[in-house]
């Protein structure tokens, strides 16, 4: 049965960004009903009951996170909306914010009402200028219509939302890096605990959520938790700790496919389905060699693993770090695996914030080795060094403050494990890989 999109239902409509258009489609009715009939706690209970898990990459249960805020706190409590979206190959939130900003804004207001936040910061990466302007316009319209500001719809509840622009740094997507950046400092992630729910922005309790997560909040309150749980993948009965993968997901498809784009599907679609049924198949009639299944940080999948479902558990079963952002980038059979890994290592070396030595040095070493590989000078011992570095940096081995380093290690580990023969052939033949990087000035 074909799935009917809800999160993207309005994207593509002529008037998808205006408040009139949104209200014509029933927009803000859910908010009005919640403000009238429900307490904040009840909103949280519905979201918790739906089993919604964060769409920003970590998959933490959203309602549960909200309950970590201190009970009866005198405030202020903050919401930071994480629109840094810098995970390479990920652009689903851009589409959502550019094309349907009011849906995201309604989610922001519902969430803030649920946990009694009176200020929300919409932290958006600088690169999303179009999305920033769309959201600023939506915010202005919402103030004028009485959905923001003092005494919203006569409920006595008040909320302000402010747009805050980033300045081109991936690490601002890590929630405590985001908070430091918002506070006007270097985006150096904080040591946790304390988690933001206890001590976040401006040392006050803070929730950080992704826009897609917040759009789902609107749909859950509009359609009910049962509707949400009828979509996606229920918990594995053999795993008591599995919270399930309920609801829709915005999947991105890019790289060597015929029709790159974003598509909304129930959680649990396979990579192969995504590529063939929604991405128009691999380009030029070629075969795929593999993909990165959830942004740069999740590691690599081989073509043979393409039947893996993209839910919160699937990618882990084939050695990937997790679902990540659900952004699939496909590379065809003629792509050099050295080029792919070179690109990924360069990214992490460039974006490491430099705070933890294992991450700062490790990402640098890994990139240096990949540079050598690309020039046709890979050494036999390089593979072992790469694996050792990749294994030893990150939160999981416990040597760094944030997860960037895990994300840097995973592509290396999975690439070498899954494509070892190809690396060995490069070493043996001394061939350089195809694309020549330019000498980059400065930075």
């Amino acid at each position, binding site marked *: 049965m074909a799935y009917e999109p809800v999160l993207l239902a309005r994207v593509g409509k002529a008037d998808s960004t205006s408040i009139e258009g949104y209200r014509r489609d029933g927009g803000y009715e859910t908010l009005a009903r919640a403000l009238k009939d429900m307490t904040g706690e009840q909103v949280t209970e519905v979201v918790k009951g739906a089993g919604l898990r964060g769409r920003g990459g970590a998959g933490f249960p959203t309602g549960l996170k909200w309950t970590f805020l201190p009970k009866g706190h005198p405030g*202020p409590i903050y919401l930071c909306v994480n629109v840094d979206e810098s995970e*390479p190959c990920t*652009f689903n939130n851009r589409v959502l914010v550019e094309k349907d900003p009011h849906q995201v804004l309604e989610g922001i207001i519902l969430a803030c009402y649920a946990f009694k936040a009176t200020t929300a910061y919409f932290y958006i990466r600088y690169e999303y200028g179009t999305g920033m302007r769309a959201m600023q316009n939506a915010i202005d319209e919402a103030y004028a219509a009485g959905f923001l500001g003092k005494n919203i719809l006569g409920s006595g509840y008040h909320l302000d939302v402010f747009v*805050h622009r980033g300045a081109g740094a991936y690490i601002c997507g890590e929630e405590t890096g985001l908070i430091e*950046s918002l506070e006007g400092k*270097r985006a150096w992630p904080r040591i946790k605990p304390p988690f933001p729910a206890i001590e976040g922005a401006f040392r006050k309790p803070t929730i950080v959520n992704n826009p897609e997560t917040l759009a789902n909040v609107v749909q859950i309150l509009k359609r009910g938790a049962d509707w949400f749980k009828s979509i996606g993948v229920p918990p594995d009965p053999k795993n008591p700790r599995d919270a399930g993968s309920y609801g829709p997901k915005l999947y991105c498809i890019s*790289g060597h496919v015929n029709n790159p784009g974003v598509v909304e599907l129930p959680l649990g679609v396979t990579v192969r389905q995504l590529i063939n049924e929604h991405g128009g198949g691999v380009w030029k009639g070629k075969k795929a060699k593999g993909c990165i299944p959830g942004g740069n940080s999740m590691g690599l999948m081989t073509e043979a693993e393409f039947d893996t479902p993209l839910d919160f558990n699937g990618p882990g079963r084939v050695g990937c770090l997790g679902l990540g952002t659900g952004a699939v980038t496909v590379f065809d059979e003629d792509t050099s695996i050295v080029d792919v890994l070179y690109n990924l290592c360069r*990214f992490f070396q460039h974006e490491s914030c430099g705070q933890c030595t294992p991450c700062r040095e490790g990402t640098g070493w890994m990139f240096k080795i990949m540079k050598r590989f690309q020039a046709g000078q890979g050494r036999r011992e390089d593979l072992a060094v790469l694996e050792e570095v990749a294994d030893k940096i990150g939160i999981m081995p416990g040597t760094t403050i944030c997860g960037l380093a895990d994300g840097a290690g995973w592509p290396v580990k999975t690439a070498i494990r899954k494509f070892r023969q190809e690396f060995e052939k490069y070493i043996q033949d001394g061939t350089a890989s195809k694309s020549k*990087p*330019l000498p980059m000035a400065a930075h």
Partner: protein
Amino acid sequence: MIQNNTVDAGCAGKLPDSIRERIVALLPRYPNKQAVTLPALHIVQDELRRVPLWAIREIADILCLSPAEIHDTMSFYGFFRTDQDPLGKTRLWVCRSLACHLRGGEELLAEFCSKLGVAPTETTSDGKITLEFAECIGACEGAPAVMINDVHRKNIDQPEKVDALIEELRAL
């Protein structure tokens, strides 16, 4: 509390009132003044194409911080430019991350370098275009993608499109 220790008679007054007012207007949005650091740097760089040292001092003054604190934050984000390397009229970013790389992003960057006669981060001699490489700009469905200031331009996949884009930016 952070003390205002930036009483520097030589620095006040160079920042145009319009910029100063826009910065001050943001203060009520945040519980402390330091949070206005990034917005203030953006406002200044948008107008002046760089953040001069004297502007750092004046921002510090408005936010009751030391200039070193502003500079510390500013230098973390490779985004901001100083007196030594001001931006040209338009900033052109070429994405080099994976989805673009797989569809010729590296070649596209090389094409821009040779046609503009600059390396990434440099500005053309007429001061019109500053070329930058970018990590994923979130427009991967239109790879290879570029960004003109903060607006995406997708599928720049032929030399003719490069020529047309350069012409367009030179005319600005």
